[in-house]
């Protein structure tokens, strides 16, 4: 259901710079200034939007869409639409931080501003129905063209709805698709505009989806404008999903209303339950052809007697899947006890499906008793996938698409229990089990690779693994949420070092090493290539000196790799933390030389140079070797001194012996002389 919005301001003439776009304001990507004093109500596709200005050319027909916390923008769309030029799409231009309305740093996506008001006026409950010609010429054809382009670029829009489509004031102008990039795909889509298999997921967990889902949303938009009212208005999301599953989407949305045949046929095709049966955007560009090639889908088989699943009563297989997914305990009991397959076989008359459910029931019987909750969860997962192969992954009451797992992890509405369930999905490779159960729907090989990758990340040791790592790895534009950074905005790796340099000025922060689990996971996820050994060693147990040196090595590597400017504050931070490590050296001259080198490296702010001084293995080895040699020499000296001190008696003996021997020699000499004298005369 569309939410009421404040009145849309009049469109601003292109090229007219807003008065508040002062040159001194902080800018995004070095060129876009955000003027939070000028909000653009209803322009941001569900998010607050403000006037933005391109400082390079003074272009003012831009808006800055404020990103909601815990709902990071869609990274893939930025690159895919970098060279997009269709004016019928408000493509993303930049992403960055700027002061928000409250003065704190906020994240914004810069887009062209809407050319005029939304198709659905803010706060309106009904509008004058559009004519068939307008619907086709101003909405269907231009939107289909944009969607075809998006499909060629392998991305989706996922925010096609009347209040996110805009019209220029010029008569006959085509509709422009609004911003859909500043939040997870489909996060702001009302249940009526999403296929049931998307609507049953939490807003952040819907994943990127397929272009057929945009075709579906365009079909609902077509209906809305054709009817002049929002279908199923007043019903909550659960009721909308159940009605769509029970009666079919088109039938549920149109009800008893009358549509012109052309629009009815087109919308009927666009709202097909199976996305493979919906017309492609390229086909929709030729409405007559799209109408002619409509695939006639068989209506769902309905049972004459409903089946009670907890508090829900269902009469068809897809509704049964939904009920089991919503009430997994009751659903598991029904399947485990054979009630579901009996109902499918005997009441609904679908023996094939009953056989499949009976098979998973048999598997479950071999896994353990009724008290095995994990086996029940796997039973529910498989049963839902078999009953409705279009349904998302349903694990313990949490429904998500595998590519929506990342945004679901970090969404503000995700509590600890949901995160634990998502961790189970990754750790136990539940998505692969689900993919196998739903048959030919989806690319099982790609899913297996993705599942293995995610599990590998989750299971990595230390700060490189865990859910925190998945938070950043699966959300490429998620700002770093480390408390170390306080309110410093950091979403890209090159923003990290300047932020740490700013933080280093705070004395209270310098008591501990700068990197924490969030920062380590952020760096590991944003760095190109495989994380190096130092990064992998973060978080492992060690002495404070070892921890600081490991962190210094990581940041030094980053500084070199990113060619970041000098960081004297960070260098001083590490010099303080590692001051004691120099005491580990022994040679006084070496210590003095190292201190002098550190003192010289800190003002220069070059972390690699500081690391080379503090983590000089050769110097440390030489010092240790010299110390060992000195100790050995000292021991020898001590032994010699002790021997000299204790050698008085020995010296007395030696002196006595030498003296006596010398006397004997003298005596012998005297005798020889006497003999010679006597002999000679």
């Amino acid at each position, binding site marked *: 259901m569309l939410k009421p919005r404040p009145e849309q301001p009049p469109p601003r003439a292109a090229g007219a710079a807003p008065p508040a776009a002062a040159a001194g304001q902080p800018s995004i990507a070095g060129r876009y200034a955000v003027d939070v004093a000028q909000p653009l109500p209803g322009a941001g596709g569900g998010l607050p939007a403000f006037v933005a200005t391109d400082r390079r050319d003074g272009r003012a027909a831009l808006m800055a869409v404020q990103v909601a916390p815990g709902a990071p923008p869609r990274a893939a769309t930025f690159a895919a639409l970098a060279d997009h030029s269709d004016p019928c799409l408000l493509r993303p231009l930049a992403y960055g931080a700027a002061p928000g309305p409250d003065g704190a740093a906020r994240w914004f996506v810069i887009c062209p501003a809407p050319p005029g008001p939304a198709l659905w006026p803010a706060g309106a409950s009904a509008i004058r129905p559009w004519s068939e010609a307008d619907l086709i010429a101003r909405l269907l054809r231009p939107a289909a063209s944009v969607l075809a382009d998006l499909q060629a670029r392998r991305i989706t829009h996922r925010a096609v709805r009347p209040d996110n489509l805009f019209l220029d004031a010029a008569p006959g102008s085509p509709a422009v698709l609004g911003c859909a990039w500043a939040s997870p795909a489909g996060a702001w889509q009302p249940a009526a505009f999403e296929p049931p298999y998307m609507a049953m997921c939490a807003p952040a967990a819907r994943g990127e989806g397929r272009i057929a889902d945009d075709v579906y949303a365009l079909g609902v938009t077509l209906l809305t404008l054709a009817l002049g009212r929002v279908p199923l208005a007043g019903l909550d999301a659960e009721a909308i999903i159940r009605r769509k599953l029970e009666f079919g989407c088109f039938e549920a949305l149109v009800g008893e209303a009358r549509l012109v045949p052309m629009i009815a046929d087109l919308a009927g095709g666009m709202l097909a339950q199976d996305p493979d049966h919906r017309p492609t955007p390229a086909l929709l560009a030729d409405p007559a052809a799209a109408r002619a090639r409509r695939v006639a889908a068989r209506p769902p088989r309905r049972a004459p007697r409903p089946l009670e699943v907890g508090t829900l009563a269902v009469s068809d297989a897809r509704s049964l899947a939904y009920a089991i997914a919503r009430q997994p305990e009751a659903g598991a009991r029904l399947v485990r006890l054979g009630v579901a397959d009996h109902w499918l076989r005997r009441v609904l008359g679908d023996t094939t499906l009953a056989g499949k459910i009976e098979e998973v029931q048999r598997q479950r019987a071999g896994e353990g008793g009724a008290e095995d909750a994990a086996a029940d969860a796997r039973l529910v997962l498989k049963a839902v996938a078999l009953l409705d192969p279009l349904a998302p992954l349903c694990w313990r009451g949490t429904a998500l698409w595998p590519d929506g797992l990342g945004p679901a992890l970090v969404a503000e509405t995700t509590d600890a229990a949901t995160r634990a369930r998502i961790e189970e999905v990754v750790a136990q490779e539940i998505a692969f089990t689900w993919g196998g159960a739903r048959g030919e729907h989806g690319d099982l090989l790609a899913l297996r690779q993705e599942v293995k990758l995610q599990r590998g990340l989750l299971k990595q040791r230390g700060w490189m693994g865990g859910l925190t790592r998945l938070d950043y790895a699966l959300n490429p534009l998620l700002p770093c949420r480390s408390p170390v950074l306080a309110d410093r905005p950091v979403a890209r790796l090159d923003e990290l070092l300047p932020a740490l340099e700013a933080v280093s000025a705070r004395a209270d922060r310098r008591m501990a090493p700068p990197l924490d689990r969030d920062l380590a996971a952020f760096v590991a996820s944003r760095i190109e290539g495989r994380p190096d050994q130092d990064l992998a060693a973060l978080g492992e147990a060690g002495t404070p000196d070892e921890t600081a040196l490991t962190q210094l090595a990581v940041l030094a590597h980053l500084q070199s790799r990113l060619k970041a400017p000098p960081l004297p504050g960070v260098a001083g931070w590490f010099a303080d933390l590692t001051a004691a490590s120099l005491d580990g050296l022994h040679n006084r001259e070496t210590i003095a030389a190292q201190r002098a080198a550190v003192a010289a490296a800190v003002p220069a702010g070059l972390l690699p140079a500081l690391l080379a001084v503090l983590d000089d293995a050769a110097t440390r080895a030489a010092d240790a070797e010299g110390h060992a040699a000195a100790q050995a020499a000292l021991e020898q000296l001590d032994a010699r001194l002790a021997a*000299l001190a204790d050698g008085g008696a020995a010296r007395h003996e030696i002196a006595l012996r030498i003296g006596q*021997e010398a006397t004997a020699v003298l005596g012998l000499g005297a*005798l020889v002389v*006497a003999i010679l004298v006597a002999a000679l005369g």
Partner: protein
Amino acid sequence: MKKAGAVAAKRGSSLWLQGLICGALVTLATPTALLAGALLLPSLIVHLLDTTSGKPTLRAVLLFGLAAALRPLLALWTGGQNTETSLALLSDMAVPALAWSAQGGGWLLTQLLPLLVRVGLEAQTRIDIARLRAERDRLAEQWGVDGET
């Protein structure tokens, strides 16, 4: 026990041999024995008093005594080798005085020379200790090791 007994027996036989030689000398060459005995009387005394192993004092004293007694003995043997000549030589006080002085000097040297050598060794030791201490202090200071042990 057996070995100690053998040494004592050897010493006893040596003493017996010495007595036999002395007896033979006194009997067969009485003038020479008289003169030699008188001139080497200090050596005889030292022989009796010196109980150290190897009798180093006796050795020195005897060598000096023999050096001083050589000329009177030669004079006795060339002068007829009779008791009168022997007594005549002994009556010349210069002859026994020289022999006894030489033996006294020999004894004095056995006392003084070890002392002098000891003084020299001690001086060298002090020099060595000072040098080693200086080297130790330098190493201790350079490598941050605790002071003197």
